[in-house]
């Protein structure tokens, strides 16, 4: 059986709370099943031949490499790809060892007296650890293929569901049914008396006598009289009782010293491990029992009972996604490879990729899949599944694991421009489209992580600031060292963003938008100019200063991931972290462009914005105009009437007092504008510039109606999307109030029985700085040195919501230096940045960071 289905068809992808808040729409890509092709394997034994149908979707082709059969269920697996061996724990107390090259069964390891529930290995690949329903852990030397240790506890721990081995500490962690975690060092002094083993210990009940004076013994009971391996008793100090409040089903190491355990109580607990044991760092609540978990990069995937798969970002402890299976079936296994996430539900494996809405599933076992893992061999990834149909299977999941890995790039630190370009190449390859978290949330997280690593590599203190329901903010702080120890260093904040506007190849892009191409002196890729390039220039300029002992100021970086979504959540996150940011003297940014192709600019003003949706709706449903036309007032006509009350015939905004706060043009301003008109190599006059920068404007972006939209329908509702760009003299709150009141009054005046709803989508404060302050003066001087040209002082019609906010909360003035040219195509197809401009910005900033003094 096979099924390919779009995610919105059956399993629901919830974007925890965020969709309604942000008015984001998930993509509704429909999947049409491709012709099925079936592949027969020459495996006479296989009962599943009929079901070995594979997929023609070339992105996802799980090919069954081999299936082994046994007489009892396969409960656990552990692959040793370097040795070419696969170990399988069985219900009948055995560990089967298969050769993955010849597919022969090579050994059977006997030692347990109960089902072998879990297997794990030491990272050097020398030892295998097995845990069972006999409350014992066995250690196996996989070179000699023999048992070396038997580990037991005097407490009644029940089944052993999970094991994890710490290579750095040489400690084995044991997750038990009685909710405790035990840990043990293999060199512990051995015991000699096997009578303390759980099966041999005196038990008040099982060794009690009945009325006849005889003990009742189950027909299958047998004492263990001799233990052939080193006998280790877990000391009392190595038992953490109630580590959870449920059975500890799964444990994995995140890195050397961070262990993550998942249990029946629904908690994923993050522990720091040391020789002293475990100390709890954090816990993530998943509501339902955690049956399985896997970690890839910084993401934690929890497979839960009742059908949910939850994805967490371990850097920020935020829940990113919940994927729910509508049948509510337990997810017994999860595994992840470089590109895919696999989950097992009953006998089926689902293969899913972040960013593709398509989920592929195939029937891997006839009954339940009890264990699942991924191993890598020769640069490829394979999936192992074991089930209670008494079989274990290996699948080629067609995933190249050795392709470019961002986080493991060269460890050699270089500061030159070549290194900057190759880093930018990495940076733009992350598809950090903040408007589509359902597709790119993992890319954004990876990019934030990459930036953290980069800042740390360059010597900054760096961490992620979590944003509720949003991509995190990257914080970095380079500490300056002044020769004069008594001097308090100036502190400069750089604001940038790593998120980008969406881009699709074949939609006007000449190249892959997420692959940087260098042509004729330009770099082409989404984000090169807006804002990854300029941000990187700032990072490199500071890094080089620090490296050459010339950094005397503290430079703080705040690089957010939601700028293109109106800096969603930025203010709340920064408000919570003002102590981390500390005192700031200046704020610098480079998130705009020159006015033309050749004249450098400095930007001292931005307009603000108020965006809103205005909807007129009727109590009646969508109707037919032939049947009901003329009966009542229609929402669409009402909306058009309403919108017509916003602007007069000359294009002036009709909101009362709208223009009142705007001051007349001063002679100094006049001079600035004339200067621009004279110098800028674009065809523009003063009135146009004034309209763009100095005066506010109102735009209707879109009008939508409900219903199918054909020409016989009276829509039940009509919705208009509009925005006002406001200027610094205007008060944002006041203007907003006036705007809403004007709409409501106007609607009252048209006396319709329909209803008006106004929803504010987004707002941003305008910004106007003093172009004669130190920051602008130093930037001006550095621009002149770099370009031999006097920069133009410009304002912009667009908005950057965070600038005015940062100025206010940090009580520091901001200055903006545009990096690229007017033709950069930010937000458009074929975004580009001239290499010269990037290098120039880096030099200008380097000198500015050196010279910018403390604010007096």
């Amino acid at each position, binding site marked *: 059986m096979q099924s390919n289905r779009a995610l919105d068809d059956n399993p629901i992808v919830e974007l925890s709370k965020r969709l309604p808040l942000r008015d984001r729409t998930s993509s509704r890509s429909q999947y049409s099943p491709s012709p099925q092709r079936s592949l027969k394997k020459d495996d006479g034994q296989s009962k599943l031949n009929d079901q070995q149908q594979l997929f023609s979707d070339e992105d996802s082709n799980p090919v069954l490499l081999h299936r082994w059969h046994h*007489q*009892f*269920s396969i409960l656990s697996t552990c692959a040793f790809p370097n040795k070419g061996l696969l170990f399988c724990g069985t*219900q*009948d*107390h055995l560990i089967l060892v298969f050769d993955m090259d010849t597919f022969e069964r090579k050994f059977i390891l006997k030692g347990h*007296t*109960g*089902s072998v529930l879990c297997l794990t290995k030491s990272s050097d690949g020398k030892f295998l650890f097995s845990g069972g*329903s006999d*409350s014992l852990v066995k250690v196996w030397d996989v070179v000699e293929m023999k048992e070396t240790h038997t580990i037991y506890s*005097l*407490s*009644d*721990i*029940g*089944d052993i*569901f999970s094991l994890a081995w710490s290579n750095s500490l040489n400690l084995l962690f044991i997750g038990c049914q*009685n*909710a*405790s975690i035990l840990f043990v060092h293999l060199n512990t002094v051995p015991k000699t008396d096997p009578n303390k083993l759980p*099966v041999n210990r*005196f038990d*008040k*009940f*099982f*060794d*009690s*006598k*009945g*009325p006849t004076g005889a*003990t*009742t*013994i*189950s*027909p*299958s*009971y*047998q*004492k263990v*009289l001799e233990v052939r391996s080193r006998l280790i008793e877990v000391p*009392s100090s190595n038992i953490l*009782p*109630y580590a959870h*409040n*449920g*059975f500890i*089903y799964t444990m994995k190491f995140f890195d050397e010293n961070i262990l993550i355990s998942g249990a*029946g*109580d629904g908690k994923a607990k993050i522990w720091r491990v040391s020789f002293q044991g475990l100390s709890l760092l954090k816990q993530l609540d998943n509501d*339902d*029992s955690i*049956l399985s978990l896997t970690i890839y990069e910084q993401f934690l995937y929890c497979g839960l*009972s*009742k059908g949910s798969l939850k994805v967490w970002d371990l850097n920020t402890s935020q829940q990113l996604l919940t994927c729910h299976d509508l049948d509510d079936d*337990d997810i*017994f296994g999860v595994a992840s490879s470089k590109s895919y996430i696999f989950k097992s539900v009953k006998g089926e494996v689902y293969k899913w990729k972040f960013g593709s809405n398509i989920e592929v599933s195939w029937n891997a076992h006839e009954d*339940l899949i*009890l264990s699942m893992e991924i191993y890598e061999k020769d640069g490829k990834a394979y999936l192992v599944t074991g089930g*209670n149909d008494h079989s274990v299977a290996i699948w080629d999941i067609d995933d190249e694991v050795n392709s470019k890995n961002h986080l493991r790039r060269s460890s050699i630190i270089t500061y030159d421009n070549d290194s900057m370009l190759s880093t930018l190449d990495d940076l733009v390859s992350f598809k950090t489209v903040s408007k589509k978290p359902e597709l790119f949330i993992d890319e954004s997280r990876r990019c934030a992580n990459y930036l953290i690593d980069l800042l740390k590599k360059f010597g900054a203190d760096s961490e992620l600031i979590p944003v509720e329901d949003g991509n995190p903010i990257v914080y970095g702080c380079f500490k300056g060292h002044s020769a004069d120890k008594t001097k308090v260093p100036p502190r400069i904040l750089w604001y940038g963003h790593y998120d980008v506007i969406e881009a699709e190849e074949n939609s006007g892009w000449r190249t892959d938008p997420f692959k940087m191409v260098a042509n004729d002196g330009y770099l082409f890729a989404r984000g090169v100019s807006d804002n990854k390039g300029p941000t990187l220039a700032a990072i490199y300029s500071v890094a080089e200063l620090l490296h050459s002992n010339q950094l005397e100021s503290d430079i703080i970086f705040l690089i957010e991931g939601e700028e293109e979504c109106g800096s969603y959540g930025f203010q709340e996150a920064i408000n919570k972290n003002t102590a981390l940011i500390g005192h700031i003297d200046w704020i610098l940014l480079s998130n705009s462009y020159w006015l033309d192709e050749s004249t450098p600019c400095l930007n001292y003003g931005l307009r603000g914005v108020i965006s809103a949706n205005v909807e007129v709706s009727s109590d009646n449903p969508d109707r037919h105009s032939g049947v009901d036309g003329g009966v009542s007032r229609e929402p669409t006509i009402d909306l058009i009437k309403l919108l017509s009350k916003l602007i007069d015939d000359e294009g002036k905004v009709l909101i009362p007092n709208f223009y009142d706060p705007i001051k007349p043009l001063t002679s100094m301003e006049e001079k600035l504008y004339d200067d621009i008109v004279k110098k800028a190599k674009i065809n523009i006059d003063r009135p146009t510039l004034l309209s763009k920068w100095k005066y506010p404007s109102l735009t209707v972006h879109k009008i939508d109606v409900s219903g199918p939209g054909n020409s016989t329908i009276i829509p039940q509702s009509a919705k208009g999307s509009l925005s006002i760009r406001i200027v610094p003299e205007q008060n944002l709150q006041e203007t907003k109030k006036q705007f809403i009141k004007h709409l409501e009054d106007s609607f009252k005046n048209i006396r319709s029985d329909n209803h008006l709803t106004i929803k504010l989508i987004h707002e941003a404060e305008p910004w106007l700085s003093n172009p004669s302050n130190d920051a602008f003066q130093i930037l001006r001087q550095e621009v002149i040195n770099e370009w031999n040209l006097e920069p133009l002082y410009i304002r912009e019609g667009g908005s950057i919501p965070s600038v005015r906010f940062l100025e206010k909360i940090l009580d520091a003035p901001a200055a903006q230096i545009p990096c690229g040219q007017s033709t950069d195509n930010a937000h458009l197809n074929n975004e580009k940045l001239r290499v010269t401009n990037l290098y120039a910005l880096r030099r200008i900033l380097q000198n500015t960071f050196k010279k910018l003094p403390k604010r007096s």
Partner: protein
Amino acid sequence: MFQTKPYPILLSHLLTRPAHSIINQSFDSRLRLDKRRPINGDGFGVGYYSIDPELEEAGPCVFRAITPAWNNLNLETLAEKTKSNLVFAHVRASTYGVLSETNCHPFTFKNLMFMHNGGISNFNLVKRKLINHIKDEYFLYLQGSTDSECCFALFLDTLDKLGYDPNEGKEVGNDALRKALMKTIEYIKDWTIGFKDPSLLNFAVTDGNSIIVSRYITSKTEEAASLHFSSGSSFVEYEPNQYRIERLDRGQNVIMVASEPLTFERGDWIAVPTNSVLTIKDQTVLLHPIIDEYHQQDPLYSRSSSFAESKGLMGSVPVAEAPDVDVPPLEREGRSRSLVVESI
């Protein structure tokens, strides 16, 4: 007590057939350990929730009798013809109160059901405090004369005061049930401070969906009355009267909690730690410690049972016998499927 999903179980698989079924426990109690009288012959009770949704409304069905469980033909026949997803069963050896049906467990109130194994020491000194503490309606609910029923009234009152009115007959949820039971234990603990003898407070309560069971003693050194649990994918009869729990996956379709294991399969049962609470929530077992002055930090601390022995409440522990080395080398766990195959 017992919970199973999605398939209900025939009561006889729990009550009458297994090697150490509740009927057998009534005349062959191993952990009462009273050599002279290892018998729970002072009546019995069975409570279960109907699988018919129409009958669910009125709460559980309870069948109680003052005859010893081994002597009750009705129990045998009813057990063979009744299925349920959630069953409580109790055999009584009275510690307090006379032999009467109103004194037999389990007790019910609307959809709630409650049992007690143990006793409150010097209950005559506590009873007045308890009665004064609870609302009239729960005082008037009392029909029998046992400390156990008073404990249930106290539990109902505690639940009420936490904001969950038991009269509504609604599912309370595992968190509130556990909170109310732990609070009930805390009241009794506080009212019995200074008494020479500890109180044994193994309670079980359910709202028809979640089950909470405590294993508790008001002592730091003595052991509480026994409590075991077992969970797995199914409870199978592999030979006549020989049952075992099958554990193939992490699902817990069958969960059993019992003062004494129902079978002699050693690996199938695990002891609930003394002074802790076991919760069955959505077919998942949770364990919470009760942390108060009687909590023991050391997980390997061995509590003594000398108090119970000296009072004659529990007999002395039988000494282990040397194992019979000639036992045929069968799979000890009894969980291998080969045995099933052989028996077919």
